[in-house]
């Protein structure tokens, strides 16, 4: 630890650098360079002069109205308050106008949407039972374009940093929601597509939740997506198409989207729409869900790692996605798969075969394939998605891949699932995977059951499930992890689940023939 600290102690800005930075900031932010500045007031409440115990009494709390005005003024645009005595001090004739309802709640909404627009440089139009707000994309593009990522960062940070990750609500605030909607579009579609429009419809009776979201990724393509489907929604621009498809989800909302132009646009619509309303994508997942897949986390974690490849006409994961924690990659690929499944991905195998893709979909699952060589009579396939709680499902998917390849006339030379089974052992591998999954569910239940969330797993439990090592297998399934291991084979085995917390290893052991006896032992362990 000392070595590390020494290493980092070395990394400081020089005094000269700090002074230069201060001078630059003073020039740019003169109001903060003076005594009594209007910045956040931090008061010392600790006992020592050098204590870090300080309290902020609070920053400037702008009223919602003033905040919205400030935002718009910062944009260099003009703000026009309809039927309001308050006029914007910097309104300029001839500029694009942003019209907002003077009622505060709507201004709050306007602010949220405005943030989203600023982030993404896209046009966002609000319609509803009240006087809406229109932000011209040209105006917005001029606004803080260099700061869009910063604004996103701020939103990210402020989304609610105090909430423990485990209990973070899935339902976002409207600001968060609007931000996500817009940010995801930017991330997934790039800056080149600027003509997208989100139309958010709010009920006057419940201004806290959008009544409908209509997404127009491409107006020329004449396609849109609305969620939820509301009979009296203004659908003048909504294309339902000749091959309209309806999906019912358990909440009773009906999704309508056109399959006229079904690959790219439809997928985009589903993707954006689903995120916008925080679906768990179960309606898209279909059999995946039925097969035991679930997703309880924050979808936003993955948005940077799913992009739409226009050439391939499908969603893909950029290479950096696979540098993430394996548990994230696993879920990421489930999500990506679900998205592609939604666009009717029929020829994924062909794309893999030609090297254009790395994700293979089966009838009710999918498999990430590192490499597959089908050039010869036999093929060699290496899967990258074999770890964790989903191993059983992946095993099943793997079997289907094998079957599909066999149907296409390919015979395997070998499999490499990090399990090293020969083809004749496929069924055994599958059974083992299922058995292991059950084992880990048992461990999770004993160790974390009372504190786990509605999924019965919880993030800690999920993380545990994602990393284990099976010593009975010669190659091991997860050899680089220290935390969990199974010793034994068949019906007689012991699970050691070690969890590092507060500088202490807590070891849970579970013996297969003593299912009710989970012992717990804590011990101090060296850190480094």
């Amino acid at each position: 630890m000392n070595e590390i600290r020494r290493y980092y102690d070395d990394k400081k800005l020089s005094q000269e650098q700090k002074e230069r930075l201060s001078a630059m900031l003073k020039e740019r932010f003169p109001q903060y360079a003076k005594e009594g500045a209007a910045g956040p007031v931090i008061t010392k409440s600790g006992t020592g002069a050098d204590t870090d115990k300080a309290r902020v009494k609070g920053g400037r709390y702008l009223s919602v109205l003033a905040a919205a005005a400030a935002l718009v003024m910062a944009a260099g645009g003009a703000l026009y308050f309809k039927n309001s005595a308050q006029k914007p001090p910097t309104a300029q004739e001839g500029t694009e106008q942003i019209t907002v309802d003077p009622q505060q709640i709507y201004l709050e909404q306007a602010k949220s949407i405005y943030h989203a627009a600023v982030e993404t440089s896209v046009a966002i139009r609000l319609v509803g039972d009240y006087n809406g707000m229109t932000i011209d994309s040209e105006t917005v593009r001029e606004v803080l374009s260099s700061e869009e990522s910063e604004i996103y960062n701020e939103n990210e940070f402020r989304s609610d940093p105090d909430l423990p990750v485990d209990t973070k609500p899935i339902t976002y605030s409207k600001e968060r929601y609007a931000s996500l909607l817009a940010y995801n579009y930017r991330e997934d579609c790039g800056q080149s597509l600027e003509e997208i429009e989100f139309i958010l419809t709010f009920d006057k009776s419940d201004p806290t939740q959008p009544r409908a979201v209509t997404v127009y990724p491409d107006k020329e393509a004449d396609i849109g997506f609305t969620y939820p489907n509301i009979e009296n929604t203004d659908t003048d621009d909504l294309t339902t198409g000749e091959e309209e498809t309806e999906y019912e989800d358990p909440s009773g909302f009906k999704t309508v989207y056109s399959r006229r132009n079904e690959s790219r646009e439809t997928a985009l619509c589903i993707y954006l729409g689903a995120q916008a309303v925080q679906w768990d994508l179960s309606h898209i997942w279909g059999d995946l869900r039925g097969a035991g897949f679930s997703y309880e986390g924050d979808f936003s974690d993955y948005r940077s790692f799913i992009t739409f490849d226009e050439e391939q006409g499908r969603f893909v994961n950029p290479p950096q996605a696979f540098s993430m924690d394996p548990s994230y990659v696993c879920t990421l690929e489930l999500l990506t798969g679900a998205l592609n499944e939604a666009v009717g991905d029929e020829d994924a195998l062909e794309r893999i075969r030609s090297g254009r893709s790395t994700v293979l979909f089966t009838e009710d699952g999918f498999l990430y394939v590192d490499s597959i060589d089908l050039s010869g009579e036999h093929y060699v396939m290496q899967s990258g998605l074999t770890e964790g709680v989903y191993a059983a499902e992946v095993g099943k998917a793997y079997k289907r891949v094998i079957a599909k390849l066999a149907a296409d006339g390919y015979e395997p030379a070998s499999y490499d699932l990090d399990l090293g089974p020969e083809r004749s052992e496929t069924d055994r591998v599958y059974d083992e995977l299922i058995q292991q999954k059950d084992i880990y569910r048992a461990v999770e239940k004993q160790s974390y059951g009372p504190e786990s969330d509605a999924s019965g797993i919880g993030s800690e439990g999920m993380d545990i499930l994602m990393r284990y090592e099976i010593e009975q297998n010669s190659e091991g399934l997860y050899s680089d992890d220290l935390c969990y291991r199974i010793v034994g084979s068949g019906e007689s085995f012991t699970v050691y689940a070690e969890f590092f917390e507060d500088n202490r290893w807590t070891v849970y052991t579970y013996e297969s023939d003593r299912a009710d006896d989970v012992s717990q032992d804590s011990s101090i362990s060296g850190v480094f």
Partner: protein
Amino acid sequence: MDIDIDEIVALYSDTVYRAALTCLRDPHEAEDVVSEVMIKYFTVCGRLEIRDQEHLKAWFIRVAVNRCRDILKSARYRKTAALEEERAVSAGMSSGMGEEELDLKKALSQLDEKYRTVIYLYYYEQYKTEEIASLLKIPKGTVVSRLARAREKLKGLLSDEEMST
């Protein structure tokens, strides 16, 4: 007591710099991040609801890490990443660092960004794992596992280093 620019810079610029350097491994990029984050702060500080100095520090780290991730994702950075790694190690060699520290620095620089970041937050900033989880918006278990793996990787890298010498 009011905080002005000099104080904010004095209090947090090193923290931001270290976080950025840990993520990016490039002193020049890290300096740019410090500037950007400071500008960001003075741009938005009127809207921030900061509870205390620790909260403010967390804000700086979080924004710095986010900014670094933006940079890491950028095409420009991906094209130059390999060169920057060399530069980071070279910078250590020219700073008169001891051999042992240089080995450690080299080993750290070889870790993936996700591992470097948790190592930095845990050992240097001395955040608890749950605090790191909150900062990075990842599950606590993931923080723990990344720490464990980072330590293992460091051990391996340092062992290799010893073997080679």
